[in-house]
C-alpha cells in the first residue's frame, strides 16, 4: 500500500472554527463544574479544561467512519466529534435524552453514529478494543481508523502494553493518542513513570512510529493527527502520538489539589490553548466576546434541555443488559 503523507492545509476559517469548538467545550465544562458544585449533577466528573486543543485537533483530523475510544475525561472528545451538547448534558443529568439514555453518565459517553465507541472509566480499558477495531478495518479492507485517547498515567498499565504490542505486530489501523498532562490524579509524572518527560519512549518497545506534538497548539495537533491517521489508514501500522498538554483544573470536580503547587497550576494556566489560538488569530476582544456569547448560549440551551429532560423509569434499569 502506498504511503500517504499529505498535510491538509488549514485555512484561517478552519482555525476560527476550531476556536469556536474549543470555546464551546470550555464553556460546557465550566458549566458542568458549576452545576456539580451546586449539587445538581450526580456521578464522578472530570473536566479536561486546558486540553481542548487535543480533542479538537484530533477529532477534526478524523474522517467520517473513523472511530474512537475515550476515557474518564471524555466531554471534550465527545463534543469535538460532533455529539450534540444537549445529548451530552442530558446524559450527565441521567436523562433519557442523553447520548446513552442515562445508562452511561460522564465516564461512559457513547455515540455510535459519530464513531464514539465509548468512554471508559477503567484506565486503559478502551485500548484493546481500539486495537481490535483497527484489526477489523484491516481485515475488511476498510479505509477507517480507530483512535484511542488516554493519559500519561495510562501508559503504566498492562493493558496499554498488550494493546500497543498487538497493534504494532498486526499493523492494525489504530492511532494511540497519549494526552500527557503530567498528572495521574494526584501523582505527578515523575512519580508514576520512568519516562514521564518523554512518553514517546514508550513506543520504542514496539518499534512503533511515534509523533511528538505540542498539545496546546491546535494546528500542530491537527497536523500530527492527520499524519498519524493517514499512516494508519494506509495499513502501514499504528502510530503513537505523544501529546504534551496541561490539566488546568483538578483531577475531578471539587479536587482541592492539595498535592499541587501554585506554580504548577500557574504554569498550566499559562498554557491555555484557547488564549494561544486567540492570540495567534488576532481575535479582537469584541469578536471573542461574540464567540463566547455564542458558546454560552449553546451551553445554556443544553442545560435547559437537560434539566427539562425525562428521567428513566426505574425498571428501565433491567433493559439493555442483553442484546
Amino acid at each position, binding site marked *: 500500500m502506498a504511503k500517504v503523507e499529505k498535510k491538509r492545509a488549514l485555512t484561517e476559517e478552519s482555525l476560527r472554527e476550531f476556536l469556536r469548538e474549543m470555546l464551546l467545550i470550555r464553556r460546557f465544562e465550566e458549566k458542568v463544574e458549576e452545576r456539580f458544585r451546586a449539587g445538581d449533577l450526580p456521578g464522578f466528573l472530570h473536566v479536561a479544561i486546558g486540553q481542548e486543543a487535543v480533542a479538537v485537533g484530533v477529532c477534526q483530523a478524523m474522517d467520517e467512519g473513523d472511530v474512537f475510544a475515550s476515557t474518564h475525561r471524555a466531554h471534550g472528545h465527545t463534543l469535538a466529534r460532533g455529539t450534540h451538547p444537549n445529548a451530552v448534558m442530558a446524559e450527565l443529568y441521567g436523562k433519557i435524552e442523553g447520548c446513552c439514555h*442515562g445508562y452511561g453518565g460522564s465516564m*461512559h459517553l457513547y455515540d*455510535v453514529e459519530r464513531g464514539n465507541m*465509548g468512554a471508559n472509566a477503567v484506565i486503559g480499558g478502551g485500548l*484493546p478494543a481500539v486495537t481490535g477495531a483497527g484489526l*477489523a478495518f484491516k*481485515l475488511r479492507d476498510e479505509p477507517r481508523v*480507530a483512535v484511542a485517547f488516554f493519559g500519561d498515567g495510562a501508559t503504566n498499565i498492562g493493558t496499554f502494553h*498488550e494493546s500497543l504490542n498487538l497493534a504494532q505486530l498486526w499493523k492494525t489501523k489504530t492511532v494511540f493518542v497519549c494526552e500527557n498532562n503530567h498528572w495521574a490524579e494526584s501523582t505527578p509524572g515523575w512519580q508514576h513513570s520512568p519516562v514521564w518527560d518523554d512518553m514517546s519512549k514508550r513506543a520504542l518497545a514496539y518499534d512503533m512510529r511515534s509523533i511528538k506534538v505540542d498539545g496546546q497548539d491546535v494546528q500542530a495537533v491537527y497536523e500530527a493527527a492527520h499524519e498519524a491517521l493517514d499512516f494508519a489508514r494506509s495499513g502501514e501500522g499504528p502510530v503513537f502520538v505523544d501529546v504534551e498538554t496541561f490539566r488546568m483544573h483538578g483531577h475531578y470536580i471539587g479536587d482541592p489539589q492539595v498535592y499541587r503547587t501554585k506554580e504548577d497550576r500557574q504554569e498550566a494556566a499559562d498554557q491555555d490553548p484557547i488564549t494561544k489560538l486567540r492570540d495567534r488569530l488576532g481575535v479582537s476582544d469584541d469578536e471573542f466576546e461574540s464567540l463566547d456569547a455564542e458558546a454560552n448560549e449553546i451551553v445554556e440551551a443544553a442545560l435547559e434541555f437537560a434539566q427539562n429532560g425525562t428521567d428513566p423509569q426505574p425498571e428501565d434499569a433491567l433493559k439493555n443488559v*442483553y442484546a
Partner: protein
Amino acid sequence: MPELTYREAVRDALVEAMRADEDVFIMGEDIAEMGGSMAVTQGLLDEFGPERVRNTPISEMAIVGAGIGAAMAGMRPVVEIMYEDFLTLSLEQIVNQAAKHRFMSGGQVKVPLTIRTQGGAGWSPGAQHAQQLEAWLVHIPGLKVVYPSTPEDVRGLLWSSIYDENPVVFFEHRLLYPVKGEVPEKLEPIPLGKARTIREGTDVTVIAMGPLVHRALEAAIAAEEEGISVEIIDPRTLQPLDEDALVESVKKTNRVVVAHEAVTRMGFGAEVAAVLQYKAFDYLDAPIERVGAKFAPLAFAPVMEQFIVPHAEDVLEAIKRTVGK
C-alpha cells in the same frame, strides 16, 4: 447418526461458522500451526489462512479486548484463552467491558464475541492450570455462560454462541476432548438457556455440569443397582439458567444433588441450591447435596489431586445420602 469426539465437535462448529461467514475469525495463543494446546483448532490454518486463524502473543487482556473491538466493529470473533486460569488476566475486559458496553451505551452497542476456554483437573497440571472458574462469570450481568458436556451439545451450543449477539464465555473441559458421542448429520444449533435431561429417573435429580455429567451417569447406573432411580439434568447454559427445567425435575423427585468439578464453596452449585430451596421448598424431602472439589488448590501429586476432585463415588454417596441410604 455420525460420531464425533468433543474435540472434533468444537472444531466442526468453528469450521462451519467460518465457512458460513467471513466475519467469523479466531484468535488465540498457538492456535495456528500447532492447532492449540488441546489440538482443537488443528487444520484450520490450512483451510482459512493466517488472517482468520491468528496466533497471538501471550497477552490475554489484549486477546479478549481485541475481540471486543472487532465485535463492536461488526465482526464475530471467537477468541481462545488457552487455560481457564488465565481468564484471571483478562477479566477486566470480559467483566468491565464486554459485559457492560451494551448497557452503558443505553443499547447502542453490541458485542457478539465468543470466548472459548478450557480447564479442569486431569494429567496433574498443578494448581495454576486446572481451576474451574465458571461461577465467577455467572455473577456478571451481561455475559452468557455455557458449559457443554457432550459432542452434540458442544457443537450446537458453540454455533449458537458465535451467533449470539452477546458476549459468551464458553467453557470446555480438558478431559472431555476425547469423549465420543453421536451428533446429528448436519450441525443443529442448540438454543442457549435450555437444560438437557440426560437421563430420566424418579428418586433423585442430579444436576451436573461438564465432566460431572459423565461421572453422574456412572453413579446413576450404580445407584440403579441399589434400587435408586436417578434423573440427570445438565443445565448446559449457566447463564441464562433454565430454572424451570430444574424445578420441574425436583418437583418430581424431591431430592437434589448438584455436581461440578469446581470448588464447592461458592461454586455454581451454591446458586442452584439457593434457587431450588427457594422455588421448590415444599417439594424437598432432603437437603440439597453439593458435590465439588474440596477446599484446596489442585495439588500436583496424583494421589492428592484425585482426593480433591469429585468422582462418581462422591456423586453416588451424595445420592444415597439424599435418599437416606
